[in-house]
């Protein structure tokens, strides 16, 4: 590895030397910082911030500065820049979901991200196959989990185990959700109901959910916050919740994980390289870095998720706290593209009008 990097640096130096002859101010210089955009929680969240560690570790290993940029509007910030015809001003985006990619391609008439030369990226072969969601190889998965129920075992006699249970009066007024408008978790739960009840049936199912007094709050933060405040005994969140509980000394009975109908909806996010990235080689380095098993596992631990490469494992005490459903549900890029806005719109009108 060390030898390889040495060669790469020399190679990079030569390339820049060659460019420097024709461009007076080389934008992709060897020592320029790599600018990685991400969602704010990745760098700033109270309990689960992974950004600082990633920056230090990458800079130490690759001798290149990493500069985080975490706009409040997350990926929409860049979609809007592209719509306004303004340059993107970043090399990569960390935290891309299948929905993000589908929305980007639906709303822009040019590519925001570029396909990666996956053959040249060391460690790409180690990525768990079932997590690869982009047919065009623009995104490499970095973190994963399942969307599931998180419930308080002391407040519920028996947790619901099926979607039909959720509309049973026995669980009336028990569930907290985050809105598909403001959170990926909310969107994933919506897709999950479409998967199980079909495009013709999911709105009827939601009618029954609303009749059973579920509460849909503005963001995952709001829903999880209300749950941790004991407003209601269950919330739709992630199957990796106990990784948080054990690291932060939280009572385990309040962090029980439940799947529905034996299923969990796969949450996946990854990293992509902007189409006009100024530092494409450094960007590839960063992808390799994120796929290194030890790094991949450390990020999973800090970001309360699971690794995305086969050789990466969480520490044993955390590993035994992760849960896998019998069946995995995931809408891929092709299923999502062109459909997300219609589904969310129909859902919103139905629920807000009720």
């Amino acid at each position, binding site marked *: 590895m060390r030898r390889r990097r040495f060669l790469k640096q020399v190679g990079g130096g030569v390339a820049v030397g060659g460019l420097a002859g024709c461009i007076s101010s080389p934008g992709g210089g060897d020592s320029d910082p790599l600018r990685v955009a991400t969602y*704010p929680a990745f760098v700033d969240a*109270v309990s689960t911030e992974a*950004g600082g560690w990633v920056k230090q570790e990458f800079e130490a290993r690759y001798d290149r500065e990493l500069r985080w*940029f975490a706009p409040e509007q997350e990926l929409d910030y860049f979609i809007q820049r592209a719509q306004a015809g303004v340059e993107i001003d970043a090399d990569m985006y960390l935290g891309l979901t299948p929905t993000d990619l589908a929305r980007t391609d639906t709303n822009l008439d040019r590519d925001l991200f570029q396909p990666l030369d996956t053959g040249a990226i060391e460690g790409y072969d180690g990525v768990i196959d079932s997590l690869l969601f982009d047919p065009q190889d623009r995104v490499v998965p970095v973190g994963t989990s399942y969307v599931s129920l998180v419930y308080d075992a002391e407040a519920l006699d028996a947790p619901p185990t099926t979607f039909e249970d959720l509309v049973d009066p026995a669980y009336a007024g028990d569930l907290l959700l985050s809105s598909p408008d403001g959170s990926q978790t909310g969107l994933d739960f919506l897709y999950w109901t479409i998967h199980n009840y079909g495009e013709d049936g999911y709105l009827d199912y939601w009618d029954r959910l609303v009749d059973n007094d579920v509460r849909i709050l503005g963001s995952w933060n709001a829903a999880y916050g209300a749950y941790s405040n004991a407003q209601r005994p269950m919330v739709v969140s992630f199957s990796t919740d106990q990784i948080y509980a054990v690291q932060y000394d*939280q*009572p385990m009975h309040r962090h029980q994980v439940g799947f529905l109908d034996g299923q969990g909806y796969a949450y996946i996010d990854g990293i992509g390289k902007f189409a006009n990235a100024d530092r494409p080689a450094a960007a590839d380095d960063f992808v390799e870095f994120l796929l290194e098993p030890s790094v991949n596992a450390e990020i999973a631990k800090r970001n309360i998720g699971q690794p995305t490469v086969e050789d990466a494992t969480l520490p044993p005490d955390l590993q035994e706290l992760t849960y896998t459903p019998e069946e995995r549900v995931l809408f891929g890029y092709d299923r999502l593209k062109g459909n997300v806005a219609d589904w969310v719109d129909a859902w*919103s009108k139905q629920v*807000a009008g009720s």
Partner: protein
Amino acid sequence: MVETGGGQLTRVGRRGREWLERHALAVVGALTAALLVVFFFYPVFTVLLEAVRTPMGWTGELFVALFRSEFYFGWFATLVTAPGTAVADAGAWLAALLADPIDAIPAVTPGTMGLFVFTAVQALLSTVASVVLGVPAAYILARYEFRGRETIRSLTALPFVMPSIVVAIGFVATFGRTGVLNEILVAVGVDRLGVMYTLELIVLAHAFYNAPLVARVTTAAWESVDASLVETARSLGARPQRSFVDVVAPQLVPAVLTGALLTFVFTFLTFPIVLTLGGFQLSTVEVWVYHEVQQLDYGEAAALAVLETVVSLGLTYAYLRYEAAQRRVQRAVRPRDRRRFRAATPLARVAIAGYAAVAAVVFLLPMGSMVLASLTDASGPTLAHYAFLVQRQTEAFAFQVQPFAAVLNSLLFAAGTLVLAVPMGVAVAVLSTRGGRGRRLLEAAAMAPFAVSGIVVGLGLLRGLVFGVSVAGHRLQVTGALAIVAAHAVAAYPFVTRNVSPMLARIDPQVVESARSLGASRIRALLHVELPLVVSGVVAGAAFAFAISMGEFDATVILATGGDYYTMPVAIERYTGRQLGPATAMGSILLGVTAVSFVVIDRVGGVFDRG
């Protein structure tokens, strides 16, 4: 040579001063207009235009679709799309109303209500609640003398600065299932209240924000009631009730209506509090603007925002017309003496105590519960949440939001906002006080910053200022600290204007004219004659301007993108996550810093008032 040159310079300097003195108001007015254009009208118009502009050309289709949509306009839409059903619905509605009026009250309209009517209804309920909770506070603060009165008065605007995340935390800690109120109810043997995620709780949260606004504006008006007028009425045999109705009330009503108008507009445009304390089922129009922006459907978002603006600015304009008609000239005011609390009648004392109890539950408990939450965790008292802030301060990476920097930025931006917003607000008040019908329109336009969807303003700032405009091959961007201050000032100055304008209008124009005829420039007359008479309005407006800046989130987070200009509300938002503790600790610091600032503002203002 030297002397002559110096003399010329002096002459030039003096001429410059004279020119400035003559045109000072116009200069401040022009500056206000320039800031409004750059930081409000231009960015907002670029977004709103999308309601009527498509790549194919201009169109009104979006509005037609909105008006025909039962989702947005309920029964009113069916009047156009299905008149037969509409008439049948109206008949059934009337029959139900006549049969059992009490039972039919929740059905505000025939058929379905629609998003717009629902939004207006919740705003109306919130306005009523704010007036009901705010006016008694004004009465007590204006008419009674008791220890701590001035401090309480200074702190009335405190709820105003609390970011919605913090209000939500405080409200959950107070009214939630295991909240303080329910624990008290259980302790005294009463059933738990289930108010979480109801319209009632949203209305209460709106009152928490806006009743202080009503109280503050009304207190100022109550204090400026002329004692001699009341005494005259009494000496002519009017009973206290009669003198209240004839003398005091006419001066209070415009102030109460000002507070009511501001409350209605605010709550008509409400957004985050609805999704946090109510849930998606209780969506308002502004939630829908957010929804459309999230779907990147700017056309529909813009069309909705235009309709919101028509409602809020239309109301503002109607109110300004009313206010102008109410204006009556008043000569020097001699304030009435405040009653000692102990001298109050037993009935009054019981009423005041009852109100104090309600106010404690609505205003103090949520803030107190949040401070309490910042000092406790599941296992009892702790300083861990503050330790986190210290750690973020000392060990944070450069790219993270640091607490002390956030405090400092907040104070700097708020001070800068005061420096800009007070002259702007006063200038607009002066320029619009005297004049005819056209001025009312201009005055309404000057109030626009608080009458336009916050989401649209944010989107406009992002696209217009952060992304920048191409001018002659260069990209012109406006971001950073000064941009944040300017954006805050634009959002804040209408509060100065609204507090100052009615008081200014009561000053006898002859007072100003006689000062002018004695050779005083317009600005001197303003500084030496008019302003001293309206200091209490300026101070109240300044407090709210400060509060607006301290609590501002949307514009700040957008204009701070990529820089180190984060304020306390931004820090609070960034520190939320699985644990609420650090956010409550930061929220408590915000409360503390703002409380001290308010007391300082009022004391400094008080010095001017007496001087």
